[in-house]
């Protein structure tokens, strides 16, 4: 009898746990734990006068938040969406945010727009995927969201339907409530009174508008940004988005006053903005005002900024040094200078190049293999750099990258021909 009673209790406890757990799950799914940071103040529509007045500011805020990079496809209609995001389970497409009433957000309310930007919930309660960086935009002020809203309303409506995503389970959207429970902060951080106004403005530009952490902060197993490793660098599209903490930037050679200029011009003694950051300069950071660029740099570089470590050349074996030097003169020095000094308006110097100072060689190896296409930078067009994957052997690319990294980056010459071959296979 006692055994039966115990058994009953175990079953009862299990039922209670299942019911409570299921109830909790259903509650999460229904959004019971979602917390909106949008105030009731935005329930009132903006007046036509307010819209006209706010739109110019909205243009600037939208540039600082780099909305266009995703919401205008290459060669596509302005603000009509369409940029693909290829993910392991399927492809997502950025949506039409022009004010078209049918295909865009023309039928949305001001509050709908605020909730999409800051809560990740679109009109009608449809959950957005976090490819839309609402985790970052959550920190935007209501005034700035209003400005962007006014700017979007004054754009030309584009009757372009959204592209259907190819995710296998369309009802996954609602499960974003679980993801948000784990990864969407409940509150917006208050300004840090210990720091300067410039630093706080910089944090806002970095975290809320620029959404830098979306690429530069590593993600955990749920694909949420890891607060404990804020801006420490992550792998994006096969290359390293560098560590842009104050220590990381100091190691790369960015002094605060230089960083502001680099964010706006995309080039400098530290090299050339590469990979996805070229697009960020092209669409966004080149348009920052002097004050905002300086604030962003001041925040990223740290207040006070750590002293820049002296980068001393690392040891090379005589064979690698000789072969690397021979290869450097053979295929690099014509543009980058015999002593790595670079050529103005043509090729950045090697002596102060941030890419050679990165902990991992993957970015350098990718550039050496593929080259860089010619690009429009704010101060002019920069010619292309050829790739060498079909001109040099894997061993030669290894020697060359070891020579470059050790001589000017202070990094140990640890690249092997096998590493180059593995990267070649991964890319083929």
């Amino acid at each position, binding site marked *: 009898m006692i055994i039966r009673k115990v058994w009953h209790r175990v079953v009862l406890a299990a039922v209670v746990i299942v019911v409570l757990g299921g109830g909790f799950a259903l509650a999460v799914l229904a959004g019971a734990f979602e917390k909106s940071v949008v105030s009731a103040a935005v329930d009132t529509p903006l007046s036509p006068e307010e819209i006209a007045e706010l739109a110019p500011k909205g243009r600037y805020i939208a540039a600082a938040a780099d909305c266009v990079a995703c919401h205008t496809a290459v060669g596509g209609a302005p603000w009509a969406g369409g940029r693909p995001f290829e993910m392991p389970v399927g492809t997502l497409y950025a949506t039409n945010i022009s004010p078209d009433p049918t295909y865009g957000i023309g039928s949305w309310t001001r509050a709908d727009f605020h909730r999409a930007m800051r809560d990740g919930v679109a009109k009608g309660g449809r959950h957005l995927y976090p490819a839309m960086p609402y985790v970052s935009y959550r920190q935007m002020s209501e005034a700035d969201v209003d400005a962007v809203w006014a700017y979007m309303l004054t754009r030309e409506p584009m009757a372009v339907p959204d592209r259907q995503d190819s995710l296998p389970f369309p009802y996954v959207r609602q499960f974003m409530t679980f993801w948000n429970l784990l990864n969407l902060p409940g509150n917006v951080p208050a300004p840090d009174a210990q720091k300067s106004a410039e630093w706080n403005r910089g944090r806002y530009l970095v975290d809320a508008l620029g959404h830098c952490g979306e690429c530069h902060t590593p993600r955990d197993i749920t694909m949420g940004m890891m607060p404990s490793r804020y801006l420490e660098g992550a792998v994006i599209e096969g290359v390293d988005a560098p560590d842009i903490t104050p220590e990381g930037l100091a190691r790369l050679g960015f002094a605060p006053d230089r960083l502001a200029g680099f964010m706006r011009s995309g080039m400098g003694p530290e090299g050339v903005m590469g990979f996805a950051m070229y697009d960020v300069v092209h669409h966004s950071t080149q348009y920052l005002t002097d004050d905002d660029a300086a604030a962003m740099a001041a925040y990223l570089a740290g207040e006070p900024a750590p002293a820049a470590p002296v980068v001393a050349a690392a040891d090379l074996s005589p064979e690698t040094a000789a072969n690397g030097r021979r290869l450097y003169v*053979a295929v690099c020095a014509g*543009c980058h200078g015999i002593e790595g000094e670079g050529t103005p308006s043509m*090729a950045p110097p090697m002596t102060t190049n941030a890419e050679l100072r990165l902990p991992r060689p993957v970015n350098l190896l990718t550039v050496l293999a593929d080259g860089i296409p010619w690009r429009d930078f704010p101060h002019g067009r920069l010619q292309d750099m050829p790739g060498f994957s*079909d001109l040099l052997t894997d061993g030669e690319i290894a020697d060359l990258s070891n020579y470059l990294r050790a001589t000017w980056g202070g990094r140990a010459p640890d690249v092997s021909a096998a590493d180059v071959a593995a990267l070649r296979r991964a890319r083929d």
Partner: protein
Amino acid sequence: MTLPTTPLSLVVNGRQVGPIDVPDNLMMVDFLHEYLNLTGSRLACGQGVCWACTVMLLDTDGAPPREIRTCITGAHFFAGKSVRTIEGHAERDADGNVTALSLVQQAFIEHFSFQCGYCTPGFVTGATVLIERLKREPVARADVESTIEAALAPHVCRCTGYVRYYEAVRSVILDTPGLVVG
């Protein structure tokens, strides 16, 4: 001041050259001009933009030749390799006199492709590299024009324009059996 040098040996236009003591930091176009008196490869921009200075890098394993810019490539890169400069395209008799132009050279003359001629060595090199590639990998007729455009796009010409170069190369491709399929 003496420049550090290293002995350099290579094959230029089918002829063994060297070993010659060549400064370690010398670019190939200067080596061709100053050491071999092969002045046909043009130095113009000096930064790899105009492609007037290109030579053919020949692969001994039968792979298609490649076009290399000599103004930004060190002379010692070519150690042990074989190159063809603009001087090596025409057929010559035992005394070095030209007896027949290459198909590409002849076509450029027939189409009045160049005026000042400064860019022409690069265009001859680029077009010849393209023809050699098509001998190994023919293209569909519909792709001939886009293939020419892609292959010669980097070459800069500042007087005659590009149309007559383009038409000359197209005529060579269409008139040479085996370069086009379908």
